[in-house]
């Protein structure tokens, strides 16, 4: 706007309006910081006397709903149903008492069926992946825990898909429900895992069923979002074709719209499955047994070798679930030129054959039915284990590398982390508000500024400002490093199609790992302290920056690259003048995700000792304090939403300006 009035002025010197606003906000924030000693206390920290007791209010509401409205009847019914479903599946997979109290399916049969399913879905590659994974689980003595985890996923994932589908369809059908659902989804998807655990504990107690319910609640929002996106993304003619075929609204939905949106829905299903696995591991905090629970115990007792084995199991399981569901999503119907017995019944018969054969074998040799705890085959003793070499490695690190690591850690703490932390804690809340609202205004106008100001105000009012600042400092330090490393890495990988493909494949795989397992290598290196928490955040949060940078660079139209080449630009000039500006909006989305990932991870890292919101959340969990837990969860969500608001409005505006869709 400012440039429009003086178009002839030297453009380099003209400050555009957004920049002016950012500068003004920065100066004002700086002034507030410098004048801190003279400011009234209320402008530095919200006075405790005026802090509304959000936690008590929330507890009041929960108590009212639970006791006076009699929600306990409902929750008890739900809990019973879920418990029963879990019992049935668990009984089938592990033979634990419950459900129909039958013998478990032999492990050989499960492994063979997974192999056959892999072959059906994706040929030899997926057959080997599936078979190999389940064989690993059996031979390394992880079978029972893995099956417990799997049974939770098998119950929770379909429920989450169904719930998400219903919500998404309802929002698609009713505009008012959509406008209600979208902000709620934004909020739910910014709440850290722990925030889901606490209300579930209050309503459903602890145990397997609580873990499953928390998992459903955590995994359903992405499904709802993908359903809505997929249905709304259909070409209008799809709906019109349904109408002109004489469909009633219900017929149209069932026969036309939902099937046509299958691709988007399958992306949702894949996300649900991966979220379920990640959450099932974390749900071990509220009594979900399985791999996650064992991992938690091993990490607590610093048995890194065994933790590593468990981590490998979780990761393998994640990869199998991800690749299988993606292969299923990619499977398109193909016509058969002649429908023969083989084309119609081939795969079902193979599955049935595998089932009968392996069941028969297992009946002959009990070892193939249930893996004994210990088994000496003469040439090898089962279970196999990776623990001794890993423990040796950890020992070597802690003895021989101790001094070097300790020195590095001390240096980092003293020269960077502690000063940074002090600086964050010194900030008056008014300064933070002015700065962030200014950024938001420059990025997205008044609406964004008001929203962000509201978020910051909530943080100030919540009574957890200092804890939130500690979280913010850890996240911002980790993310600065991550961006400094990830951005150049992504740019470099993006230069050639082959490197980009390899980079994206690695990112894809790393992203399927449940966040919790990233703690294992970090603890191996740094033991349990705040540096390891930050390191864990970095390892986990670097994935989206790299990924989105690669994608952004690859998406630059080749004609533009050619135009730059023909203008005589060398590699670096091309990077700086063409690729980076055009890819930046997409990269910003990646940075946004990185911040989200970091926030989630930093909260999980509370488990290895931090002093931020996460630590308080763990405490709230052990005290069953819903109000406190939710307020803390909201604090984290609000921090994420602040960054999201600024980054995505900037990205959207920039895209519009550049004319990229």
């Amino acid at each position, binding site marked *: 706007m400012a440039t429009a009035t003086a178009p002839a002025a030297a453009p380099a010197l003209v400050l555009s309006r957004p920049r002016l606003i950012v500068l003004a906000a920065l100066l004002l924030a700086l002034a507030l910081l410098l004048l801190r000693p003279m400011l009234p206390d209320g402008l530095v920290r919200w006075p405790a006397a005026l802090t509304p007791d959000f936690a008590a209010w929330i507890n009041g509401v929960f108590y009212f709903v639970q006791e006076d409205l009699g929600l306990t009847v409902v929750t008890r019914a739900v809990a019973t149903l879920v418990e029963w479903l879990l019992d049935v599946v668990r009984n089938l997979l592990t033979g634990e008492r419950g459900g129909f109290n039958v013998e478990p399916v032999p492990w050989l049969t499960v492994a063979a069926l997974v192999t056959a399913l892999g072959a059906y879905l994706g040929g030899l590659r997926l057959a080997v992946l599936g078979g190999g994974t389940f064989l690993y689980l059996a031979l390394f003595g992880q079978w029972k825990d893995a099956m417990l985890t799997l049974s939770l996923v098998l119950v929770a994932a379909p429920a989450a898909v169904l719930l998400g589908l219903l919500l998404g369809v309802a929002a698609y059908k009713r505009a008012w429900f959509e406008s209600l659902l979208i902000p709620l989804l934004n909020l739910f998807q910014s709440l850290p895992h722990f925030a889901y655990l606490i209300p579930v504990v209050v309503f459903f107690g602890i145990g397997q069923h609580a873990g499953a319910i928390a998992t459903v609640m955590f995994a359903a929002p992405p499904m709802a979002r993908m359903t809505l996106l997929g249905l709304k993304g259909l070409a209008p*003619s799809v709906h019109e*074709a349904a109408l002109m*075929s004489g*469909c*009633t609204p219900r017929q149209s939905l069932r026969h*036309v719209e939902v099937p046509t949106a299958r691709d988007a829905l399958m992306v949702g299903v894949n996300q649900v499955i991966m979220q379920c696995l990640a959450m099932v591991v974390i749900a071990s905090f509220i009594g979900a047994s399985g791999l996650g629970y064992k991992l938690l115990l091993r990490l607590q007792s610093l048995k890194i070798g065994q933790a590593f084995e468990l981590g490998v199991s979780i990761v393998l399981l994640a990869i199998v679930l991800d690749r299988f569901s993606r292969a299923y999503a990619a499977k398109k119907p193909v*016509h058969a030129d002649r429908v023969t017995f083989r084309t119609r019944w081939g795969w079902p018969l193979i599955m049935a054959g595998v089932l009968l054969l392996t069941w028969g074998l297992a009946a002959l040799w009990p070892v193939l039915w249930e893996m004994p705890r210990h088994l000496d085959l003469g040439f090898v003793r089962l279970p196999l284990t990776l623990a001794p070499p890993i423990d040796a490695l950890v020992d070597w690190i802690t003895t021989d590398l101790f001094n070097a690591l300790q020195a590095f850690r001390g240096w980092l703490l003293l020269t960077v982390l502690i000063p940074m932390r002090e600086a964050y804690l010194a900030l008056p809340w008014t300064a933070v508000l002015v700065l962030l609202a200014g950024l938001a205004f420059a990025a997205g106008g008044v609406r964004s500024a008001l929203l962000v100001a509201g978020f910051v105000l909530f943080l100030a009012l919540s009574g957890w400002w200092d804890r939130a600042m500690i979280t913010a400092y850890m996240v911002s330090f980790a993310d600065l490093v991550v961006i400094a490393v990830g951005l150049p890495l992504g740019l470099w990988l993006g230069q050639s199609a082959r490197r980009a493909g390899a980079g994206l494949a690695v990112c894809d795989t790393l992203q399927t790992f449940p966040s919790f397992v990233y703690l294992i290598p970090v603890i191996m290196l740094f033991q349990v302290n705040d540096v390891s928490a930050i390191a864990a955040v970095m390892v986990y949060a670097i994935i989206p920056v790299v990924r989105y940078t690669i994608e952004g660079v690859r998406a630059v139209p080749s004609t533009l690259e050619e135009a730059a080449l023909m203008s005589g630009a060398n590699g670096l000039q091309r990077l700086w003048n063409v690729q980076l500006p055009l890819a930046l909006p997409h990269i910003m989305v990646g940075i946004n995700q990185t911040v989200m990932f970091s926030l989630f991870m930093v909260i999980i890292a509370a488990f290895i000792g931090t002093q931020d919101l996460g630590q308080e959340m763990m405490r709230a969990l052990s005290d069953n304090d819903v109000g406190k837990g939710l307020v803390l969860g909201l604090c984290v969500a609000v921090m994420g939403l602040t960054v999201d608001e600024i980054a995505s409005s900037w990205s959207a505006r920039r895209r519009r300006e550049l004319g990229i869709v």
Partner: protein
Amino acid sequence: MAARAHEIETALPRGTAAPPPALRCEGLWKVFGADPATLFRNGGRPDADALKAGGYIAAVNDVSIEVAAGEILIVMGLSGSGKSTLIRCLARLIDSTAGRVEVEGRNLLTMNEKDLIELRRHKMGMVFQNFALLPHKTVLDNVAFPLQMRGMGGRERLKRAREMVTLVGLEGREAYFPRELSGGQQQRVGIARSLAVEPDIWFLDEPFSALDPLIRREMQDEFLRLQRMLHKTIVFITHDFEEALRLADRIVIMRNGRAEQVGRAEELVLNPATEYVARFTREVPRARIVTVRSVMDAPDGAASGRPVPASARIEAVARRMIEGEETVPVVDEGGALVGSVRRGRVLDVLFGAA
């Protein structure tokens, strides 16, 4: 008077007396904007200023047209001219802001949901530009889909669908899925689907625009072949004037939501109602459009040689005239002499008036 009678005769290829129109709309409006209903309160009609002042856009602006049974009406206009909106109003895929749409005398706009669904299940079919086939169903099931929706039994509907697939020349592809077919083949499926319920009124929304030129031409021939067999009442949308000329009985030219002119191709070419229509028709090969009838004079004794039918196009006699024949006799369908055409008139059509 004579010219008027001819027009009706050519516009209704089979009829002698004009039957009631199969589809008709009167004073039809579709206005987009904040609260378009206010513009039409108490039967009022907005003018251009009122629309502009309220920030409204009239995608369909006071359009009245009639389509006779068995007629091909082509709605022609550039993108944004409102032709897609018009066809959607006619099929009531969107609700019009004001006006009437009548199908065989029944007002479509006041019909309830149930009757509307019944009407679509039995009377209407539509073909879409981007095909809009169901990706999870085979060719046969796609074609049978409207029949399935109206509850027809499996065996019967597959039999009917198979007939339709044969009709559009896709035998042997019944078990294919849409993504396994080329664009032209997919649109054949779209056509078969829209015809499966044996509709009386057939809407085609730029059916061939997504196809490449050679396939497009082939599909146009296919369309004409089908229409010669089926005699549907057709509203066909296109932005391609060539296509309109090839297929139309009559053409509507749309611009900014208004119907600029409705008429036979020849009328548009010879008597454009507005400057816009004139610009559109300027580059058209007139010899292929103008009939002998419209340039003939009274019968002339000097006329000699093989007579030409009055309904023939100028291109049919052009070569003879250029090669030297001065005056050629003109006859009607029965072979009776009705006039003569002189060389000068033909050259005027071919090269413009001297």
